[in-house]
């Protein structure tokens, strides 16, 4: 596929806006449909489009396997860690009210952070699934 100039040019133009749209969906989850999972899938779709057109090796140069794993782990730890902060402030686990001066802002900040964690994890997982399935050469021993 990587010798068709129309596809290559269009992909180069559109991958950036796809990731931007993913970030928009991520942070506007309070005001419209959206949130972490959907945003993660959209961002991953952008990277997968790039890998589809330019080849798997180019895709892996963009996001190496180690970085991919680290992104996934960071997302999960962010999600769980924000809940742990509230333990430090003598409240229950996952109580976001204490993160700011009053309940409403605290919950807002908490939800933003954990949705970002979810988005990171989902984007990492979708990308790694795509690369694992498409680079499967049939040797596992």
């Amino acid at each position: 596929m990587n010798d068709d100039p129309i596809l290559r040019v269009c992909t180069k133009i559109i991958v950036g806006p796809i990731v931007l749209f993913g970030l928009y969906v991520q942070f506007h989850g309070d005001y419209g449909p959206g949130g972490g999972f959907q945003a993660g899938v959209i961002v991953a779709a952008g990277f997968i489009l790039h890998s589809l057109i330019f080849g798997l090796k180019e895709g892996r140069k963009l996001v190496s396997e180690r970085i991919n794993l680290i992104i996934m782990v960071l997302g999960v730890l962010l999600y769980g860690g924000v809940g742990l902060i509230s333990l430090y402030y003598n409240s229950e686990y996952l109580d976001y009210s204490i993160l700011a001066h009053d309940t409403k802002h605290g919950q807002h900040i908490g939800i933003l952070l954990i949705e970002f964690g979810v988005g990171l994890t989902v984007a990492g997982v979708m990308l790694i699934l795509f690369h694992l399935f498409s680079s499967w050469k049939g040797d596992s021993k």
Partner: protein
Amino acid sequence: MIDFSVFQNSLPALQVVVPLLLAPVAVLVTIPFLSWLIALFGSIFCLYSSVSLFLLVSEFGKINYYMGGWLPPYGIEYIIDDASAFMIVLISLMGVFATTYAYQSLKNEINKKSQSKVYGMWLLALGGLLGLVTTGDAFNLFVFLEISSLSSVTLVALGSKNDKRALTAAFNYLLIGAVGATFYVIGVGLLYSITGTLNIADLTLKLSELTNNNSMKAGISFIIIGLMVKAAIFPLHIWLPAAYTFAPSAVAVLLTATATKAALYVLSRILFTLLFNADEFTVIILQWILLPASIVAIVFGTIRAIFEKDIKKLLAFSSLSQIGYITIGLTLGTASGIMASFIHIANHSMMKAALFMGVGAISIKFNQSIKLDNLKGLYQIMPITSISLTIVILSLLGIPLTIGFVSKVYLLKAVFNHGNWPILFIIVVTSFLALGYAWKMIENIWMKQPDNMNLLVKEDPKIYFPLFVLAIFNILFGIFAYPIVNSAFKASNAIFWKVI
């Protein structure tokens, strides 16, 4: 700086969160030994927290932990009472045993690339099971059910290095498990549609007025079928023999001791706590569904095990019949029946885990399935393993002074009090039939001469040490049965509200 009492107060949450958060760290670390250390740390922390929660509950009564500070029925709460404290101590204790056994055993049985990532799955399975038994919200239960199921599927599939049938076993487990969990979700949806709440305690209150509602009956039936799949109750046990046979030995140890038992605990919660006011309906479920299923499971499991040459498959079918004993205790519908079931849940975990550990110790050098013939003359080559295996086999038979005897006594007493003579007869007869496969194992270990191949196997202290300690536990709790019996008694009181 960090208040220790805060730590104490949030143990119900930490006990689930710590293994779940340590799991991705164990995946990230590339050295297998470090990942194993992280898994060991996670399981020891869970043991510490479950024992402290158990002691707290026996002193102060039920603990309700509200996640995120949201009060029920809007929020998710975690309930630690006598019954769930019993289960979390059991699961974390067997988790520690399985994790200490796992390092050497997994090093030999799975391929090199997976050796550090397996501990991530291990921690996820452990954390998921601990959350399954403590949560007080019906949908949260589904989430933990799926977390523990999907990680168990991955763990079973790792046995493909030795035998490619592990892959089909894992795939069947995945398919049947996913269908079962979806049935559970349908049931919860039906119950939500008539009560408007997902909190289990609130559901109990609201369902107690709706006892003749058809949606309630349909919902409960879907939930029970879903849980029967996970607990491997006949006829939905199809995934169990293949999964336990072809999984790596350490994985079989973990799964047999914890996964089915947690589902059986949830089943008893649904049958007795949730439905405490629906007498006729519960009696129908117990008498027409669980009772025939348990009897067939006991008879079929024992007879099939007698004719089986492959030891892991033999142990899997024996597990089927033991799960039948546990559910027979539940079908009696009395507090002493539930107490006998809980005693057998604890004892069977300890017995089967030790048996699978023993089989794993032998299969380290053979890269094929262990047949009965491979046990010939084991006492000369691996003496400590043989002694421990024999103690546990005797315990499985129900010889006095072992935990198997304690659970048989309480089960027979409960059936006797209920006056159900056919069940009594079946239990006694199948206990004697179990001699059919147990005697073959003991005879091969002690009374035959080893073939040439067997002389290649040597004993490994890292492997036989957890096995030996479990065998000692088998005898110790058989003689000093009070801790297990007393906690099971309190657990049955917590589940069965009517007995006061």
